[in-house]
C-alpha cells in the first residue's frame, strides 16, 4: 500500500472512530457515576433521525446537529428518569431505549415524511462535524478530569454512601451523567447522518455497543477510551475498504467489527491481571 493510501486509511479510521469515541466518552460519565448506560446505540439512532428530520425541514445544518444532540439527551433523560426516580434497572432501561429509538423513528418517519426508509437531508451534508465532535469530546474530558463536577461524579460512582454523607445529591449527578451521555451519543449520531447526508434506518449499526466495549477496553480512562475507539474506527474503515472489492460479501464485513471487538475484549481481559469481580450487583428477576 502506498503512503497516500495509508494516510487515506488513517483519515478514514479517524472519521469512523470519532462518533464512537464521542459516544464512549459520554458513556464513561455514566460508568463513572456507577450507572453505565447501554442506551448509547439508541441515543445515536435518535440523534441521527432528529438531525436529518430537522435539517430537511429547516434546511439548516446547525439546527440539525443541535436537534440530534437534544434528541440524544432526551433518550438519556428517559433512561436516567427510569433508573433514578422509578428505580428501574439501568441496564434494562438502556435496552428499552435501544428498542424504543428505531421503533419511534420509524413511527415518526412514516407520520411526517411518509416513508419508513431513507430520509435524504442534503442540508446536513458537509457540516464540520469532526470539529464539533472534537470540541464536544474536549468538553467532556475536561469536565470529567479537571472540574469538581467530574470529581464528585466519580465519588458518587465509587462511594455513594460517602458522597451522600458529604451532601452530594447522587441522584442528580447520575441523571446529569445520563443526560450528557445521551447528548454526546446523539451528536455522534447526527454526525453519522451528516456524513452521508441522510437518515437510514438502523444506521447506528452497533456503534453504540462498540462504544461500550471501548469503555471497557480503554480501562475506563479518557485516554484509553479514545485510543480504543480510534482502533475500532480503523477496523470499521478497513472492513469498508475491503468491502469495495468485487463480490465481497457485505454482511460478512459488517459482522467483522463485532467479532474482532469480542476477541479484543476477551484478549484484553486475558492479558489484564485482575479478573472480573463477578456478576454481582446486577438486578436479576
Amino acid at each position, binding site marked *: 500500500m502506498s503512503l497516500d493510501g495509508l494516510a487515506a486509511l488513517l483519515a478514514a479510521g479517524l472519521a469512523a472512530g470519532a462518533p464512537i469515541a464521542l459516544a464512549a466518552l459520554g458513556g464513561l460519565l455514566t460508568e463513572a457515576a456507577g450507572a453505565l448506560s447501554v442506551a448509547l446505540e439508541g441515543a445515536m439512532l435518535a440523534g441521527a433521525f432528529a438531525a436529518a428530520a430537522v435539517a430537511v425541514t429547516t434546511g439548516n445544518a446547525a439546527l440539525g446537529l443541535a436537534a440530534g444532540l437534544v434528541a440524544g439527551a432526551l433518550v438519556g433523560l*428517559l433512561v436516567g428518569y*427510569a433508573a433514578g*426516580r*422509578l*428505580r*428501574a*434497572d439501568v*441496564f*434494562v*432501561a438502556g*435496552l*428499552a*431505549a435501544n*428498542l*424504543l429509538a*428505531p*421503533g*419511534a423513528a*420509524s*413511527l415518526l418517519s*412514516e*407520520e411526517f415524511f411518509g416513508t*419508513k426508509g431513507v430520509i435524504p437531508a442534503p442540508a446536513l451534508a458537509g457540516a464540520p462535524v469532526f470539529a464539533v465532535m472534537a470540541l464536544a469530546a474536549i468538553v467532556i474530558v475536561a469536565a470529567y478530569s479537571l472540574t469538581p463536577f467530574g470529581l464528585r461524579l466519580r465519588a458518587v460512582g465509587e462511594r455513594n454512601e460517602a458522597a*451522600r454523607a458529604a451532601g452530594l*445529591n447522587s441522584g442528580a449527578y447520575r441523571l446529569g451523567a445520563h443526560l450528557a451521555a445521551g447528548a454526546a451519543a446523539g451528536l455522534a449520531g447526527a454526525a453519522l447522518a451528516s456524513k452521508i447526508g441522510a437518515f437510514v434506518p438502523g444506521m447506528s449499526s*452497533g456503534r453504540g*455497543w462498540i462504544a*461500550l*466495549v471501548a469503555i*471497557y477496553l480503554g480501562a475506563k480512562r479518557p485516554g484509553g477510551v479514545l485510543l480504543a475507539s480510534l482502533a475500532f474506527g480503523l477496523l470499521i474503515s478497513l472492513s469498508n475498504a475491503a468491502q469495495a472489492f468485487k463480490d465481497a*460479501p*457485505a*454482511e*460478512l464485513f*459488517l*459482522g*467483522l467489527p*463485532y*467479532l474482532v*471487538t*469480542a476477541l479484543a*475484549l*476477551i*484478549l*484484553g*481481559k*486475558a492479558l489484564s491481571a485482575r*479478573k*472480573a469481580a*463477578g*456478576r454481582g450487583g*446486577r*438486578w*436479576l*428477576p
Partner: protein
Amino acid sequence: MPRNPLPALLAALGFAAIYAVAASGSPAQALRSFFVGPFSSAYALLSLLDAASPLVLCALGAAIAFKSGAFNLGGEGQASLGALAAAVTLGASGSGGFLGGAVPPWVALCLAFAAAALAAALLALASALAERWTGAEVLLTSFLFSQATLLAVDWAVSGPLRDPDSNLLAMRAIDTGLLLPRLAPPAPLSVGAFLALAIVLAAAYLLKRSRHGYELRLHGQNPAFSRAQGFGSSIELWPLLLSGALHGLAGALLVAGTAGRAVKGMTGGIGWNGISVALVAGADPLAAIPASLFFAWLDAGARNSSIVADLSPDASAVMKAIVLFLVTAAPRRRRSGKGVRA
C-alpha cells in the same frame, strides 16, 4: 424478587390507545383492529399461538440464564443460527439433498432440531467459556458473537445458500413432508406449539423440583455460597448452554413450523423479545406462557391495525420498549424527603 409487571403492560396498552386515537383517521376501526383483531378469526388466533410458541422458548432460555445469574444477550443470533442449522439439515434430507429421502421425515425433523440446539448451544458456550477463562463478561461477548453470527447467517441465506429460482432472499423451500404437521391448515400453527409447551412445563418442573434446578437457582442467588456448598463450577457453563439450545430450538421452530424455509432476517427480534418476556414473567417459566402470548398479541395487533387501518406496524416496537422501561421499575410510594434512603 418478583415485581408487579401490570403497570408496565397497562402503560403499553395505554400508548396503543392514545396512538390509535391520535394518528388514525378512523380511531374506532384502528382500536378495534388492534385490540380485538387478533382474536377475531380462528386463523388470526392460531397465528397468534404460532407466534408465541418460539417466543416462549426464547423467554425460557433467557429466564434460565437469569436464574443462574447470567445475562444472555445473544439470543437473537443463537435463534438465527438454530434456524439456519435446521434449514440446512432439512434441506439435505429432502428431495435433491445429499441424504435424498434416505431418512424418514420424523428422523429428519429430530436431526434438524438437534442440529439447531447444538449449534446455538455452542455459540452460547463460547461466551460462557470466555468468561470462565478470562473474565470477559457474558453480557458483552454474547451480544457481540450474536451480532456477528446474525450477519453471517444473513449472508449465507441470501448468498451461497440462496434459492436461485426465487425472488426471495431465502433458501430453497423445504419439502412439505419434512415440515412439522400443521393443526388446521392454512393457519401456520403446527405441532411445534405442543413441543414448546411441553418443554416449558418440563423446565418449570425441573427448575423447581430437581437437584440441578436447585443448584442453578442457588448459584444465581449467591455464587460464593453455592461454591462453599461444594457445587461444582460446571454450573457456570451449562445454564448458558441450555439457554443457547432453547434459542436454537426456537429458530428451528420458525423454519420447520412457521416459514417452511430459512429467510433473511427471519428471527425479527425474537431474541430481544424473549428477554422482555422473561423480565415480565419474573424469570418464571410458567408465567412466561401468558407473557409471551401478550407480546404476540402486541405484534399481531399492530400488524393487523396497519393492514385494516392506517397505523404503523412499528407501534408494537414502541409498546415493547415501554414495557421494558417500566417492567423493572419499583418507584417508592411516598418520597420521604431528599437524600433519605428508603
